[in-house]
């Protein structure tokens, strides 16, 4: 029986690859665990096509600031989205290493740039908790919920929402206009 958050997941992730699987699995879900400015986050493993270590990224002039550039993944052009910019986190120190999580959305490939990808964890859906009401808006908008891991808290990222970068997103619209 899908719990409340489970239902949310399947609704919100309609278009995202793997989204339906998360709901369908019911019991357990595997998450790719990543770090963003010291915050532990997770992405449903079925939404992830590839995890890349450092890649040359060609910047795109005039792109929204979240768009870090393009990268070449075995002959396919992948749009790189810097999640630090996307979630309005402080920028990554220059020269600091980063990794990318490749995901498919509407037959386009996107690489989500994160600080580090550490492991894959299988967690029970029922254990996921709703976002605390005090969560900053930018996080709440892009999160399905929170897992309490032994040491730290992990935010389950909503990949579909993260990729909604169209000019209809006011943040982006401003960034574009500026």
């Amino acid at each position, binding site marked *: 029986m899908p719990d409340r958050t489970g239902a949310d997941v399947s609704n919100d992730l309609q278009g995202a690859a793997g989204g339906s699987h998360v709901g369908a699995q019911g019991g357990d879900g595997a998450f790719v665990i990543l770090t963003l400015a010291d915050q532990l986050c997770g992405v449903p493993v079925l939404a992830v096509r590839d995890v890349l270590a450092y890649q*040359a990224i*060609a*910047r*795109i*002039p*005039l*792109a*929204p600031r979240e*768009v870090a*550039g*393009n*990268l*070449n993944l075995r*002959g396919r*052009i992948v*749009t790189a989205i810097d999640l630090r910019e996307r979630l309005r986190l402080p920028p990554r120190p220059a020269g600091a290493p980063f990794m990318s999580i490749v995901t498919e959305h*509407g037959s*386009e490939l*996107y690489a989500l740039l994160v600080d580090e990808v550490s492991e894959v964890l299988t967690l029970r859906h029922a254990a996921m908790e709703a976002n605390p009401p005090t969560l900053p808006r930018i996080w709440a908008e892009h999160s399905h919920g929170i897992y309490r891991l032994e040491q730290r808290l992990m935010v389950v990222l909503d990949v579909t929402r993260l990729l909604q*970068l*169209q*000019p209809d997103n006011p943040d982006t619209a401003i960034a*574009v206009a500026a």
Partner: protein
Amino acid sequence: MDDLIAEFLTETNEALADLDLALVKLERTPDDQATLSLIFRLVHTIKGTCGFLGLPRLERVAHAAENVLGRVRDRELAATPGVITAVLASLDRIKLILFALSANGAEPAGDDAACIAALDHAASGEAAPMPAPATEAAAAPEAGAVEAPSAEVASGSQTIRVGVDVLEELMTLVGELVLTRNQLLQISRAEGTNLFTAPLQRLSNITTDLQEGVMKTRMQPIGNAWNKLPRLVRDLAHETGKKIELDMRGQDTELDRQVLELMRDPLTHMVRNSADHGLETPDIRRAAGKKEAGTIRLNAYHEGGHIIIEVADDGRGLDVAAIRAKVLRSGLATEAELAVMTEAQVRHFIFRAGFSTAAAVTAISGRGVGMDVVRSNIERIGGTIELASTPGQGSCFTIKIPLTLAIVSALIVKACGERFAIPQISVLELVRVGGVGGTAAAIEQIGGAPVLRLRDQLLPLISLGTLLRLQEADTKADNATVVVTAVGSGMLGIVVDDVYDTEEIVVKPVAPILRHVTMFSGNTILGDGAVIMILDPNGVARGAGLSASRDRREAGAGSAQAARSDDGMALLLFRVGGQPAPRAVPLNLVARLEDIPREKIEFSSGGAVTQYRGKLMPLIAMDEGGGAGQAAGPTQPVLVFTDGARSMGLMVDEIIDVVHDRLNIELGAARPGLLGTAVIAGEATDVLDTGFWLTQAWRDWFGSAHGTPAHRRLLVVEDSDFFRKLLVPALSAAGYEVTAAGGGAEALRLRDGGLEVDAIVSDIDMPDMDGLEFARQVRAGGGAWATLPMIALTGRGAPADEARGREAGFTDYCQKFERDSLLVSLQQCLTEQVPM
């Protein structure tokens, strides 16, 4: 063979194969309604197509079979083996006829009576003796080929049907292969000659061949996009009462399926346009000495990796004057800007958004979505469109489009360390600038905007790095290269740091997130694996604020003509007659603005008057009603115009504002009392014809007998239609007999034609021959007008100008729009002149 027949053969052969299977299935399960309707539909289609193509034998046989099947479908007849056999026999007969058709392109002679009789028997429910199809077949001329049909038909047509998606997939794969090949070649070049060099070269050649081969599978003759046109043209001819011949050439020219699909609508639209706007009605054509039927000619051919498509008509050609007027009216350019444009540039306005010259919106075209959509569709696929037109002889649009969209040849350039691809089709030439030797051309600046002298032209430049915000504006570009690109009707120089090479690139669409960045038409992966953006020169031009056909907003883009400024003037905006749209009048024509208490407005002889400064002043309402009181308040706002001792008040609803703006007026307003429409403060605004309203008041209230000064003849020389329209009525109203000329040359012709006048009023700033030159010519050589008083009108009043004017021969100098001083000046000049 006819294309239609060939297609029919392919389709029917497929249908027949399906039918064989379905009939056998039906025999086993006679009650299967789905199969039955499938069979019925297939036979029905064959019959229908035969009838359409004029194949009577096939049609008769198919019709008989359809009859039988119809009855089976309606459950009036059981699908007994006898019935099925009869139908199968008819199918064999159809195959036989088809075979002869594919061999000879025509139906063979022969008699199908027995076959049809058998079917009719079956239809009537009687079991009939079945004639053996094979013996009947002997009646056909190709008697020997009894058993050949199925095999021969298949091999004869030599085509198979493949889903478009399969071809698309193949093309994508070939694209990837080309990329990988490029990558390998790059590595190989870096490594120098080794074992791999030779096989790699072979691989490269094979890849190229494969690419061409696969592209060929996607090729379709352009005739496919044209096949609906004859019907369209016929209908259009019918609707418009014109006689139109459609001449299509080069239908076999092949181009990529994707390109073809994208070209279909623009072509249809252009043919519509030609039929609707381009060609004249038969009587007009006859009067012009042309043959009654107009011709629309479509021509397609290959030219150097591109397809050229021409859409030409032998109609009236583009009416440049109408375009000019329309451009002014819609505010796309000012009179001054138009004045310096060539006819070709003016014609190019038809490609601008919101432009349509059709006087009336017809069902066929003229809905304001027109050539601009055509142009943007063509540009979207990396093509260009050009236009040539000769008045009275017709127009010709030339479209140049790439053979394919998937793989294009592009120039790789570098700006600020980043590489970009520019499609070769839009690159005209490369110019080195700066350089140490000093021989290369140099970039010059006009008001901070970089330009380049390119032979006889001033080329506006855009620094790619600055435009894409890769760097701060770098004015000192040494050792740069200018990529001269064709954008719309003009050219644009894109300044880059370096130019590498041309490379065949596979165009990949940009991610949806980046679609709003119009400067890029896609991205691609280079041989070295780098991802780079493909520039769209038209998008770059737009991004630089310089539209393809020179937008008004281009400002800093550095075209030399932007320097020519028009006179700005103070304009009074007001509302009148309950209309929401504001009206405008030049402020210096208005003597005063008054709020007249409503109770002070009196009515006499059916018109409104008020006592104003001790005199009666007529009040004119601008709406048809003619009565006062359209403003609700206790007072009536009135614009007071005075002339000597006479005053007239124009009642308005509300005075809005005084703005300082350029008056780019479009003439030919349909309503009297208005000069036309101009864009003022960003809004389309009707401009008042004060002369009209003044004469209205005077005729009504003072009578023409009143106070006309001695009959004097004036010549007004003024290039601007607007000022002319303003001056002439005002001067006529003052009692002068006015002749107007649009320029110095025209005025001199009038002189040579024997026109007699008493004084000349001339503008100074005019194209071709300015007022000073005109004055010199009038004074020189003792022509008929050599001693006439000449009054100069000018927007500027610097004493130096005035001195130059007097030197050239002007008697007096007046500010434009200062009507009173002009009248005074005329009075003085003429009284001085009278004794002569």
